[in-house]
């Protein structure tokens, strides 16, 4: 899984009232691989994690790492 882009950080900084819900879609790389436009209808599984927010005074790097970890954890649950 690649590093998260900083847009997520700026979004949650501007709208701190919004919940960020981590979602992991299993099998996505097989259903629709990067660069393909026709999906293959394989079975998939969507896992939702607990919502998270930008903590007060949290740095951009810390926040993005925490968000990435939240999604990563869902992959291991599955």
């Amino acid at each position: 899984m690649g590093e998260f882009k900083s847009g997520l950080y700026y979004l949650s900084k501007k709208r701190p009232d919004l919940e960020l819900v981590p979602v992991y879609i299993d099998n996505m790389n097989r259903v629709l691989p990067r660069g393909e436009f026709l999906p293959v209808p394989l079975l998939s599984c969507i896992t939702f994690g607990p919502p998270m927010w930008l903590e007060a005074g949290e740095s951009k790097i810390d926040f993005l790492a925490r968000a990435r970890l939240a999604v990563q954890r869902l992959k291991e649950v599955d």
Partner: protein
Amino acid sequence: MGPRDWVLAAVVVVLLSVATAVGQFVKRQPHLGLNAAAIATFNRRLGAWWIICALLGIAFISPTLTVALFGLMSFWALREFITLTPTRLGDHRALFWVFAFFTPLQYILVGYNSYELFSIFIPVYAFLFIPARVALAGDFKRFLERIAKIQSGLLICVYCLSFAPALLYLEVPETGSSASNARLLFFFVAMALISEALQFAWSQLYGRHVIAPTINAARTWEGLVGGSASTALVGMVLHWATPYKFLWQTAFMSMVVAVMGFAGAMTMSAIKRDRGVRDYGTLVEGHGGVLDRIDAICFAAPVFYHVSRQIFKIG
């Protein structure tokens, strides 16, 4: 629907009810020392069989709708099969064609009863297209293994299963009405169900010699032989519902269904063991295991169709 169809429907409902009652009874009798996991599997199977028989009732009303329903079942089973077997990025385009083109077209050809086309469409055209398309994608790693997986999935889940609704288009000599075709499909599915139940019962009661413990610990030689023989007896009782001329033909066809159903269940077990799963249904939470339920029908359908058509000259 004539009186014979109502009798057949009643027979099926009674048999299913008896099997369900037996399944529920042995579940509540732990002191008998029967294999609890096998009983749970049997009860789950029965639940699915109720649904399949209800769907088959539609065959008496609309053959086209039955073909479409079997097509959906194939589609779902193939999804489970391919999800379970690892594929690589290079297989993506070939898989897309398998799902979007070959599967629906096979059932359209069955619906138009073009036997000359649907009997060779997948074994020739899809069989050759898949390796060529994967080769074009340029990934040669474990090439033969990957194309074999896609071909096997398409042949078992789509090609083989499509012969079950194709029974609706055989030209049954005696009456020529579509109800006698629907009865033939019903007979086929009922035999598959009954052989499943009887093989289970024989294995549980008299099973001593497990055939392949590493593949399926519940299948025994006693279950196979006893189950097939008693399936033939039950089939002979249902002889009046079939288009076969002689009683021995009906008995033979019942045994064909029993033996092929056994072969299908063993093959699918072997694939599941290799992938390290118990059921296709437990693959992804919340998705039913269609392939677990239809493995016996998949193997029995093409042989049943072919023997009926070519050897007993129906259609």
